[in-house]
C-alpha cells in the first residue's frame, strides 16, 4: 500500500507547474506571443539551455512527489505502519540511501580515503585503508560503462521518437530527416543532441551507482551523487518559488502605484524605498531568526525532520520573496506610468472603461516582458544566493540537501591533506550547469523581448 503525502513545497511546485501549463495554453492562442517564443527558441543555445533546464525540472518534480510505503506490522492489533516519507527520487536511489559507507571515499574508489585503526588477531593495531562495503569487487568498470551508455542511447532515442510522433504524428520520419539536416524550423537537432548527452551521462552514472560510488562519499559515507541530485530540488525551488511569492506582491503594488498615483503611490514608494535601503543580508538574517523562533514555539506544525526542514525552506522562500519584490515593483511602477500616458489608454479612461478592464486589457499585457525578464534573471541569482546564505548561517536547514550546505562542508574538506575535492566538485558542476543554462536562456529572452535590445 502506498500513501501519497505531499509537503508544503511539493504542493506549491505542482501548483506552479499547472499554472505554467495553463499559461502556456493561454499564450498559445495569441499568435503574437507565440511568434515571440518561436523567435526565442530559434537560437540553438536557447534550445540547449531549455533542454538542460527541463532536465533539472524533471528531477525537481521527481523529488517533489512524496510517498509513504506500507510496512509489515509487527502485531495484529496495531494499526498499519508506514515508512518515513520518501520521494520518487529516493525510491529510484534507494540502493544509495541504504548503502552508506563509513566515511570518505573518492569517486569510483574501492577503499576508504582515510586510514583507520585496525586491531588484528594478534592484538596489534595498525592504520590502513579499509575496503568499501558496497562496491563491485571485480574490475568491470569498462564493460558496465559500455552497457550503460548503450542503454542511455537507446533510451534517449526512444524519447526523441516519442517527441517526434507527438509533434508530427505520421510525418515523424520526414521530420526526423529534416531535423538531422538542421533544416527544421527550430534547432531541434541541438535539443536532441543535448538530450541524448544528458540522458546518456545520467544513465551511465545511475547504472554504475549500483556498483560504485560514482562521485564518492562524504564524511559519514553518504553518496555524493545522491546528495547532489537531492540538492537540485532545493536550488530550483528557491529559484522558482521565490518568484512565485514575489510576483503577485510586486505586480499588485507596482501597478497600483503607477496607475492610481496620489497617496497610494506615496505609500508604496515609501515602502519599497525603506525595504530596499536595508542591506539585504541583514534583512534576511533577521527574518530567518524570527522564523526559527516561531518554529521553535510551534513544534506541532511538523512531525518529522523532513517536514521541519521543508517548512524552513518554505519560510526561507517567503522571506526571500518579501525582500526581493522591491526591484520589480519599481520597474513596473515606472512602466505603468509610461503606459497610462499613452493615448489609447487615456482615451479608454475618458470613455469610462473600468479600471480593471484597463489593467487587464492594456497594462498587464504590456508589462509581460518586464516580468518575464526579471523572473528568469532572478532565478540564477537566487540559486547562487542560497549558497551564500548557507555560509552566513541563515540558509536552508542544515539537515537539508543543498548545494550551499555541500559547499560549506567542502570548505573544511579542502583544508585536508590530501584534499577531499569531490563534494565541492559535484556541487560546483551541478550548480554551474544549472546557473549557466539559466543565464544563457535569460540572455536570449532578454534579447528577444526587451524592446531596447534591438541590435
Amino acid at each position, binding site marked *: 500500500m502506498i500513501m501519497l503525502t505531499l509537503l508544503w513545497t511539493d504542493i506549491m511546485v505542482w501548483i506552479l507547474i499547472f499554472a505554467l501549463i495553463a499559461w502556456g495554453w493561454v499564450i498559445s492562442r495569441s499568435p503574437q506571443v507565440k511568434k515571440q517564443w518561436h523567435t526565442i527558441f530559434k537560437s540553438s543555445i536557447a534550445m540547449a539551455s531549455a533542454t538542460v533546464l527541463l532536465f533539472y525540472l524533471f528531477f525537481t518534480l521527481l523529488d517533489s512527489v512524496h510517498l509513504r510505503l506500507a510496512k509489515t506490522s509487527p502485531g495484529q492489533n496495531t494499526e498499519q505502519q508506514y515508512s518515513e516519507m520518501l520521494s520518487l527520487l529516493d525510491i529510484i536511489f534507494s540502493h544509495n540511501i541504504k548503502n552508506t559507507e563509513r566515511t570518505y571515499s573518492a569517486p569510483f574508489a574501492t577503499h576508504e580515503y582515510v586510514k583507520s585503526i585496525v586491531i588484528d588477531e594478534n592484538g596489534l593495531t595498525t592504520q590502513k585503508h579499509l575496503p568499501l562495503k558496497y562496491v563491485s569487487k571485480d574490475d568491470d568498470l569498462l564493460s558496465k560503462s559500455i552497457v550503460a551508455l548503450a542503454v542511455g542511447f537507446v533510451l534517449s532515442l526512444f524519447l526523441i521518437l516519442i517527441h517526434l510522433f507527438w509533434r508530427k504524428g505520421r510525418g515523424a520520419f520526414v521530420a526526423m530527416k529534416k531535423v538531422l539536416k538542421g533544416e527544421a524550423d527550430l534547432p531541434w537537432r541541438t535539443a536532441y543532441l543535448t538530450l541524448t548527452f544528458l540522458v546518456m551521462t545520467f544513465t551511465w552514472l545511475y547504472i554504475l551507482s549500483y556498483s560504485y560510488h560514482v562521485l564518492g562519499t562524504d564524511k559519514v559515507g553518504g553518496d555524493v551523487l545522491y546528495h547532489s541530485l537531492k540538492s537540485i530540488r532545493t536550488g530550483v525551488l528557491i529559484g522558482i518559488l521565490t518568484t512565485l511569492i514575489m510576483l503577485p506582491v510586486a505586480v499588485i503594488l507596482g501597478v497600483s502605484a503607477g496607475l492610481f498615483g496620489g497617496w497610494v503611490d506615496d505609500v508604496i514608494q*515609501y515602502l519599497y524605498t525603506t525595504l530596499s535601503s536595508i542591506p539585504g543580508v541583514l534583512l534576511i538574517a*533577521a527574518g530567518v531568526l524570527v522564523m526559527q523562533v516561531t518554529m521553535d514555539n510551534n513544534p506541532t506544525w511538523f512531525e518529522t525532520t523532513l517536514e521541519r526542514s521543508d517548512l524552513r525552506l518554505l519560510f526561507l522562500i517567503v522571506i526571500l520573496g518579501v525582500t526581493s519584490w522591491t526591484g520589480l515593483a519599481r520597474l513596473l511602477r515606472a512602466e505603468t506610468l509610461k503606459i497610462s500616458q499613452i493615448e489609447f489608454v487615456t482615451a479608454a479612461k475618458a470613455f469610462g472603461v473600468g479600471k480593471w478592464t484597463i489593467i487587464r486589457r492594456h497594462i498587464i499585457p504590456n508589462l509581460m516582458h518586464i516580468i518575464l525578464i526579471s523572473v528568469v534573471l532572478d532565478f540564477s541569482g537566487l540559486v547562487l544566493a542560497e549558497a*551564500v546564505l548557507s555560509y552566513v548561517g541563515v540558509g536552508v536547514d542544515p539537515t537539508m540537501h543543498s548545494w550551499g550546505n555541500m559547499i560549506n562542508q*567542502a570548505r573544511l574538506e579542502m583544508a585536508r591533506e590530501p584534499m577531499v575535492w569531490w563534494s565541492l566538485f559535484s556541487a560546483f558542476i551541478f550548480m554551474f550547469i544549472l546557473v549557466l543554462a539559466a543565464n544563457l536562456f535569460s540572455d536570449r529572452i532578454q534579447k528577444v523581448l526587451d524592446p531596447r535590445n534591438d541590435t
Partner: protein
Amino acid sequence: MFAYILKRILYAIPILIGVNLITFMLFFMVNTPDDMARAQLGAKQVTPQMIEAWKADKGYDKALFLNKEAKGLEKVTDTLFVQESMKLFSFDFGYSDANRNIGAEIKERMGPSLAIALPTFMIALITNISLALLLVLFRGSALDTSMMIVAVMIMSVSGLFYIIAGQVLFSKMWHWVPISGYEPGWGGIKFIILPILIGVFAGIGSGVRWYRSIFLEQINQDYVRTARAKGLSELKVLFVHVLRNGMLPILTGVVVVIPTLFMGSLIMESFFGIPGLGSYTIDAINSQDFAIVKAMVFLGSVLYIIGLILTDISYTLFDPRVKL
C-alpha cells in the same frame, strides 16, 4: 539644486525611521532582552538576579513601544524604541554587548573595509571597461562571441568557489601570499592582494557584459560613424568618442554603489580575516548583538540613500537634458 538636495534629505528621515522600526521589531521579536542577557552573561549558571541586573544596566528594562506607566507624551517617548532611535539619528551608536564603543569601532573598521572594497571597485572598473572596449573593438568576431560565453560562465559560478579555489592555489600551494590576515599601511598589501583579485575576477562576467552593451549602444550613433568616416583609427574612435559618451550611463550607474563600499564585503572579509565592517556585521548576526546590527542597518540605509541622492545629482551635473 540645493532645495532639491534638502528635499531629498528630509525625505530620507521617514525612511530611516521606517528602517529603524523594521529592524527593531524583527530583533525584539526574536530576542527578548532576557535572551540577550543570557547570551551575554554566558556563564555556567545564570541566575534571574543576574539577568535583571544586566537589563537594568543596558536600559533594556523599558517598555518597547508604549510605556503605560509614564504620563502624557512620555508614554511614547520614554520607551526603548524612541530612546534608541533618537540616539541613532545623532550617530550615537552606543555600546556593543561586549561594552565597546560601536561608533569608535565602526570608524576603526572602515579603513580595512575600504582597503579591500575601494581597490576592488577601481580595478574592476578599469579592467571591465578595457575588456568591454576590446570586445567592442572586435565586435561580431569569433573572439567577441566566445568571450561573451566565457563571461556568462564566469557569472554562473558561485563566488564561494572563486574564494576557495584562490586560497587553495595562491596561498596553500604556491606560497605567494598569506592565507588570511590584515595589517594597516603598505605592509598590508600582501594580505589584500588576493581578495582584491578574486573580487575583480568574480565581477568580470557581469561587468564586461554591462559595459559592452553600453558601448555598443554608442557605436552605432551618428557621431561615431562621422568620426570613422573622417578616417580616425578604430582605437581612437573607441577611446575618444565611444568611451567619452559611454561615461555618462556608466557614471550614473556606478555612483550609487560608491557609498555602500564603506559597508565592506561580508563574505570576502570573513574568508580572509579582514577586520572590516563586513565581518563585523557577520559576527554581530552570529552573536545576536542587537546594538551592532541596528547600527549597521542604520549605516547601510544612510549610505544607500546617499548613493541615491548622488546618482540624481550626477544626472543633473553631467546630462544637460535632465533638469530637477
